[in-house]
Each structure stands twice: as structure tokens, then as C-alpha cells.
């Protein structure tokens, strides 16, 4: 390993060991949720809304969680025709293996549910993962196509 890499690794370890500022973490988590919801509503699924195939609602929710405590955030509800509702619900800003999770599910349909997991890449960037099951082989990078594919399956 080159010296630069070793020094960078040391620096990273040192940063990780610093006491986490949970208040700052909480704000970043809340912003991450909003960003994801906005991406879905205003970018990925905007066409569906404009064509009257989806209606978006943002519903305020209160959360009390380990480490980050109490906060207000929002759930995204997507209403499809024929009384079908898709819910994107924040679960926790901290989770095992990842840096926060949301549930995405079809309301009233027991097993139509996936986890959407946040992976912090650096201070400026998150990566979102969609997990269909506990098995790592069922974890994919979240994008428009993956989300569409899941909804399509659920509607079959």
C-alpha cells in the first residue's frame, strides 16, 4: 500500500473515531429523506403524476429513535388508482450495516415490502440501496428502474 493510501486510511479511522455529533447527523438524515422523496416525486415519477397515474402526498410524522432521539420528518404516500397506496416511510436514521432505513410498501399487502437503505459515501454524498430480502444478493442500487420494477411486480 502506498504511503498516501496509508495516511488516508489513518485519517479516515481517526475521523470515524471522533464522537459523532448526533444533532448534525439527525439533520443530515432528515435532509436525506426529503431529497429522496423529492427525487421520486419531481424526477423519477413526475411523468406519472402529470398523467394522473399517481398522486403524491407528504404526511408529517414524528419519530423517536435510538441515538438521534426525537424529530419530525415526512412519509411519502403515493396513491394509485383503484385504492392502492404505496408508502415510503422513514424507520430509523441508524441501522445495522447501513446508515438509516426506510420501508417502502404497498399498504394492506402484507409481503409487498422492501427496505430502502442509506449508505453514506462522504459528507456530501449518499448512496441508496434497495433490499428485497436479508440476503445481500438481493440488495441493489436504488434508481428509477429498480423502483419501477418493484411496483410493476406488486401490481401483477
Amino acid at each position: 500500500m502506498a504511503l498516501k493510501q496509508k495516511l488516508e486510511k489513518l485519517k479516515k479511522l481517526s475521523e470515524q473515531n471522533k464522537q459523532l455529533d448526533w444533532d448534525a447527523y439527525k439533520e443530515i438524515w432528515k435532509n436525506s429523506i426529503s431529497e429522496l422523496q423529492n427525487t421520486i416525486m419531481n424526477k423519477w415519477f413526475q411523468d406519472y403524476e402529470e398523467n394522473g397515474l399517481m398522486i403524491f402526498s407528504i404526511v408529517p410524522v414524528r419519530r423517536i429513535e435510538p441515538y438521534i432521539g426525537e424529530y419530525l420528518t415526512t412519509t411519502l404516500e403515493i396513491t394509485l388508482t383503484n385504492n392502492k397506496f404505496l408508502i415510503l416511510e422513514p424507520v430509523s436514521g441508524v441501522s445495522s450495516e447501513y446508515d438509516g432505513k426506510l420501508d417502502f410498501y404497498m399498504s394492506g399487502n402484507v409481503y409487498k415490502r422492501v427496505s430502502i437503505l442509506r449508505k453514506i459515501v462522504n459528507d456530501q454524498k449518499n448512496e441508496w440501496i434497495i433490499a428485497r430480502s436479508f440476503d445481500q444478493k438481493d440488495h441493489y442500487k436504488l434508481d428509477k428502474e429498480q423502483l419501477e420494477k418493484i411496483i410493476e411486480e406488486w401490481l401483477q
Partner: protein
Amino acid sequence: MVTINNQDLRDVYHYLATIENVIQKEIKLINGNKFHLDKIVPEQLAKVYSQKEKTALAFADQIVRTSYESSVVSLMSTFERVVFAKYKTTFGTLKNVVKDNSPNPMDYYKSRENFLNGNIDKLSGIIYLIERQISNGLLQKLKLLKDHRNYIAHGKRDVAPPAVEMKLADIAKTLDEVIREIEG
């Protein structure tokens, strides 16, 4: 349906899988007919959650969630009962072996049996005890399940939840494998 070898765990898993199955079937009927909810809730709750489709479905979602969480706790408590019974039996046996066979200078100590730890009373203690006896993958799953149980049982306040929840069948299978490896 998965095969569970340990009888206690198998019985509980079968009860829970049946409850899950009943709930799943009933909730399917709420879809498209919100008033079906009134047939399954206690009489006093009739028409409370069934007036709007969205409310009825949200109530159904919470039934599923609550049932799942109760099942996780139930499976873990059964597992604890089984492993603690085995631990106590093993401790008793080892204590007698030490008492009967310890040569000098160990015999010098009247309290020689206490060199064995018979005071483990938490699952974390058992995990510490077995961590070199079971495969790493299985150990990680067991630790995750313990944290998941704690997350639910302690009011979702002091432990992070699992990123992805395991299905009941997978939980039962994992716990059964741990028991099998301990026995092996």
C-alpha cells in the same frame, strides 16, 4: 415451510407461522372491502377503523407489523429457554467433573467448582460462550437477532434496528442451526 429440529422451537414456530398465515388471509380480504375489518376486530372496534379505505389498510399494516414483532420476541424467548436449559445442564455436569476429578493443587480450593462460570443469565453471555464454537456467519446472524429482539423489547430506543428484517422462517431456521451446532 422450513424444517426445525428442536421441538420447542418447532412448536412455537408452527404456532407463529399459523398466526401469520391467518392474518395474511384476512388482510387480503380487507383489500377492496374495508368493511371486512369489522369482522375480525373486537366488537367495540367495529366501524372505528373501517370508515376509510386508507385508514383500514393502515390499521391492517400495523396488525402485520405488531404480529411480526411479537413473533420475533416469542422465537427469541423460546431459543433462550432452550439454550439456558442446556447451559445449566452442562454447567451442572462440568461442576461435578471438576469436583470429582480435580487433582492438586486445584483440589486445594474448596470453591474449585466456582472456577466454572455458572452465573450467565443473559443471552449476550451465552453468545460470548459459544462464539468460537459456531461459524462466523451464523454468529453474526445470532447477534443481529439478539439486537433485533432488544430493539423491539426495549421500546425501539436504545439499539439500532436491523437494516433488513429476516422472515420468521429464516429466524427459526437460524436459531435451530445454532442449537444444532451447540449440541454437535
